[in-house]
């Protein structure tokens, strides 16, 4: 058994109902680290990037990293990799919880789903026993009901990862949910799983993950734990207030997207901010597997309200997506909308972005009265009833309007003739940082391989959160191209290794690569580690090029480049994308059309 890995890939051909186990390609694992990189390598080899993401020729890969299942801080991540139904580009969505490690303990580094099952099925994995079982009794059920039923009929300690009604109905904002509330959220990966007629994967494992150098590994882990425990970002902000701790700051400087990015400050932001959540609705903190941060919020609605429920969340991105971006400042409503998204298994960012797009289209009068007349609610900003109703329409594709919503914000706006009102890139909605006030993020959104995403190159850290002397001016374009390249490569390594991005504020690459080396027994240098990140980024880019993407898709909506923000510290700003993009292509070694040059590819061993 190789170290860090368990060395086995589970391949499930759903069309034929055939299960095969094959050795992990360790050469690729070395070149692409694991998880995101390795999964993309398999996908690049095995599918035609131009295929229909909802067709049987697309494959869905559930991949872990070499640190998944170890006690490396936050070493509990897994990734879902496929061609994204929302974006038509490469998709890799990352999730924590307990499912990823359980898969490794069961003896698999990766699961590849291919083909399409003739009828709904779920996969039951108990160590080396793998069964494709009938799922007709859970088809249509929410993620919570599904997990309860499937655990009862398999093993009460089993972990599940699967889809809700949104994925079944091929809603392009559907996500994969594991352990009831942890989401591999973006790019519509849930629809890809749904298109294969797979409801869930239920896993129970009793095996082991071994590391190469136990002494060294534990030394490095304890050192990182100490750093994390001393870090105010990890403890005060993330542990104390969750990701919601960001709301107050982004709102004060004016980049908390509000009403579909028409404003950067939200009047009711305080009601949905971290401290208020901690003081009112928070029941307990929770951590994913091996997590020394514990940012997850186990919550319950509070006080008299028509929205009653309990569950997990909200994250900062959810507070924006289902809150400020839709003009909703009622905390109970935001929580309830979050719970609904978890139950239906929908990405809270893209679901929120889609509703916000619909609201702006309606308010501007671009949706014909006949279409609006079918709705039983008033589609306007600030109306929580509209949010809840839209979420349900979207998950179940109810009616003609529900069918449109389920296609995501871009296709909705395009249908009504105003694609410029969709706030996102490559058909994927922006995250909760208005790029006009943090221009590096603008470049990051535009160039992200999986469509607009804050986690691919989180330059917010450098432009606003860093100590003053290290800060890049958020209002200029200087140094943003280089910063994005470095951050994108860095994130590619971190994701692929199987740890969470929140650890990496303290566990910087110079601390992470020795941990990877100690776990796997490899001897990478820091340069080789960084190069692996660049290799992963370029491979994703190659996939997209073959899927038909080019420079025209590295773009921002005109609102970002032409309409200045109005409030806060960031007013009068727009994103000057073109100069940053030119510089970025240059630094990346890509041609004017955004494709990697031959010498870049040969430097990375991708030629």
């Amino acid at each position: 058994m190789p170290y860090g890995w368990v060395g086995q890939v589970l391949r499930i051909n759903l069309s034929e109902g055939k299960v095969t186990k094959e050795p992990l390609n360790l050469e690729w694992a070395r070149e692409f680290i694991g998880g995101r990189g390795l999964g993309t390598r398999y996908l690049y080899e095995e599918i035609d990037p131009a295929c229909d993401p909802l067709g049987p020729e697309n494959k869905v890969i559930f991949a872990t990293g070499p640190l998944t299942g170890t006690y490396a801080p936050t070493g509990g991540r897994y990734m879902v990799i496929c061609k994204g139904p929302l974006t038509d580009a490469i998709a890799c969505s990352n999730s924590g919880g307990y499912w990823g490690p359980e898969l490794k303990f069961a003896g698999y580094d990766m699961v590849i789903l291919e083909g399409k099952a003739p009828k709904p099925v779920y996969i039951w994995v108990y160590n080396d026993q793998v069964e494709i079982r009938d799922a007709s009794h859970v088809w249509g059920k929410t993620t919570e009901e599904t997990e309860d039923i499937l655990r009862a009929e398999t093993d009460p300690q089993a972990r599940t990862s699967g889809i809700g009604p949104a994925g079944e109905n091929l809603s392009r904002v559907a996500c994969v949910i594991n352990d009831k509330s942890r989401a591999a959220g973006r790019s519509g990966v849930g629809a890809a799983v749904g298109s294969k007629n797979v409801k869930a994967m239920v896993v129970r494992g009793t095996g082991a993950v071994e590391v190469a150098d136990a002494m060294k590994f534990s030394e490095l882990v304890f050192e990182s734990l100490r750093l994390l425990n001393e870090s105010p970002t990890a403890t005060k902000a993330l542990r104390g207030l969750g990701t919601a701790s960001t709301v107050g700051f982004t709102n004060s400087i004016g980049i908390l997207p509000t009403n579909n990015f028409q404003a950067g400050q939200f009047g009711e932001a305080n009601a949905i901010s971290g401290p208020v959540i901690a003081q009112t609705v928070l029941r307990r903190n929770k951590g994913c597997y091996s997590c020394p941060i514990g940012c997850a919020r186990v919550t319950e609605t509070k006080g008299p309200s028509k929205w009653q429920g309990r569950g997990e969340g909200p994250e900062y991105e959810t507070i924006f997506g289902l809150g400020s971006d839709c003009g909703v400042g009622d905390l109970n409503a935001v929580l309830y909308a979050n719970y609904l998204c978890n139950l239906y298994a929908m990405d809270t960012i893209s679901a929120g972005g889609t509703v916000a797009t619909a609201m702006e289209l309606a308010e501007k009068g671009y949706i014909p009265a006949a279409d609006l007349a079918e709705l039983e609610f008033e589609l306007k900003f600030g109306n929580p009833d509209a949010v809840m109703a839209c979420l349900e329409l979207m998950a179940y594709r109810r009616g003609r309007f529900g069918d449109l919503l389920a296609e995501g914000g871009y296709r909705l706006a395009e249908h009504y003739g105003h694609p410029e009102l969709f706030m996102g890139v490559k058909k994927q909605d922006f995250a909760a940082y208005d790029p006009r006030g943090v221009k590096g993020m603008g470049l990051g959104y535009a160039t992200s391989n999986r469509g607009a995403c804050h986690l691919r190159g989180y330059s917010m850290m450098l432009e606003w959160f860093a100590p003053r002397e290290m800060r890049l001016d958020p209002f200029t374009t200087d140094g943003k191209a280089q910063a994005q390249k470095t951050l994108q490569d860095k994130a590619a390594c971190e994701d692929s290794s199987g740890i969470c991005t929140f650890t990496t504020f303290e566990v910087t690459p110079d601390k992470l690569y020795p941990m990877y080396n100690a776990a796997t027994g490899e001897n990478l240098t820091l340069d080789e580690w960084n190069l692996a990140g660049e290799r992963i980024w370029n491979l994703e880019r190659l996939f997209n090029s073959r899927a038909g993407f080019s420079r025209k898709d590295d773009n921002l909506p005109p609102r970002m480049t032409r309409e200045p923000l109005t409030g806060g510290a960031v007013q009068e700003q727009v994103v000057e994308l073109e100069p940053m993009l030119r510089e970025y292509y240059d630094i990346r070694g890509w041609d004017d059309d955004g494709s990697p040059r031959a010498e870049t590819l040969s430097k990375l061993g991708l030629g």
Partner: protein
Amino acid sequence: MKMILPHPEKCVACHLCEGACSFKHEGSFVPAKTRIWVYDFVDEGIYGAVTCFHCKDAPCLSNCPTYAITRDPATGQVTVNDDKCIGCKMCMVACPFGVMGFHMEKNVAHNCDLCGGDPQCVKVCIYDALEYAEVEPNEWMLRLDEVEKPAAAT
């Protein structure tokens, strides 16, 4: 005696202690062979870790048919002797907390051995949900109350 005292109200259900325990005892990450367990009923908001309390009136010890389980008279620590254990699992049935573990390959029961005085689970728990503390062995009923606290609080 000194033993591992859980403070479930501080636990976040990250399972780091299980990883650390198995890494120490088995040399690999294998939660199935851990000697400390995290129960995670997230829906109910109930989670925490449990491990051997080295009970003063230890049912595992008095139920062991081969006298494989003994108590160190000096420290009070309860230990399974591998050579005498026949893998009958009587101790697992007897344990009121369900904290007797079982090693499938060796076919012997195992409990928390306090890592010889340097418990790894405590070291790895940066939430302070585990404490290596001086506790009177007959106080385990008090600790039972503490384990039940979060359920009452919700």
